[in-house]
């Protein structure tokens, strides 16, 4: 079991900004009998990695990235879905495929994740970590101490194909 704690224990910081952590978004990591494969990095085309702040959002059914973040990494689109947002806004949104790493924490890399692309106005955040990723973790929010904690069962990096 891996346990990761928020960097700051400041009740006001957690109250004002919410539970945030740094992530690194890149192209999906696919595994073959010969090992992991990723696209060749070509800025603006795909294959690059980008670090960004993310907000843990239990109100988001799926993980969300801003269009700027999607473009910076050069993610590839795999679907379109219907998105319902606060204020009664309903819109079609692109679905992209990515990998998500947690460079400051001992959390397992998510090698293939579907992320929804939409603007996050009025927020200094480029990613909302939704309940799809939260389903992998235990998550504890303690507003009294200003601390959040993520628990994750130990996961193998990958399973060798038979």
């Amino acid at each position, binding site marked *: 079991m891996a346990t990761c704690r928020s960097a700051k224990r400041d009740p006001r910081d957690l109250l004002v900004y919410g539970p945030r952590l740094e992530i690194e978004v890149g192209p999906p990591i696919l595994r073959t009998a010969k090992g992991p494969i990723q696209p060749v990095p070509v800025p603006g085309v795909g294959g690059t990695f980008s670090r960004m702040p993310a907000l843990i959002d239990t109100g988001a059914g799926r993980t969300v990235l801003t269009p700027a973040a999607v473009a910076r990494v050069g993610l*590839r689109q795999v*679907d379109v*879905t219907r998105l*319902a947002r*606060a204020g009664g806004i309903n819109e*079609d949104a*692109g679905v992209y495929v990515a990998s998500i790493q947690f460079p400051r924490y001992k959390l397992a890399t998510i090698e293939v994740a579907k992320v*929804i692309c939409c603007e996050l106005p009025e927020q200094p955040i480029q990613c909302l970590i939704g309940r799809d990723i939260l389903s992998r973790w235990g998550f504890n929010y303690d507003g009294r101490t200003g601390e959040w904690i993520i628990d994750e069962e130990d996961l193998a990096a990958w399973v060798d194909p038979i």
Partner: protein
Amino acid sequence: MAATEQTRLAGELEVYALHKSAWLKGHPGQYVVIKGDAVLNFYPTFEAAYQAGAGAWGLNTDFLVKQIVEHEPVFFVF
């Protein structure tokens, strides 16, 4: 959504819409992989479908990976 996103996969979504009724009978809940007019195959999981598409067409290109369901899901973000 940006105009470029709307046009990306537009052709593939048309192919999906054209065949959706038939595929709902034969492959309900499975994932179909489409690029242009080409339908690669049907797969039990998104990961298997994406891996097959990437194997066929590479990682630096768009292709549609669509779960065959009667009603399209709506995701809430608050």
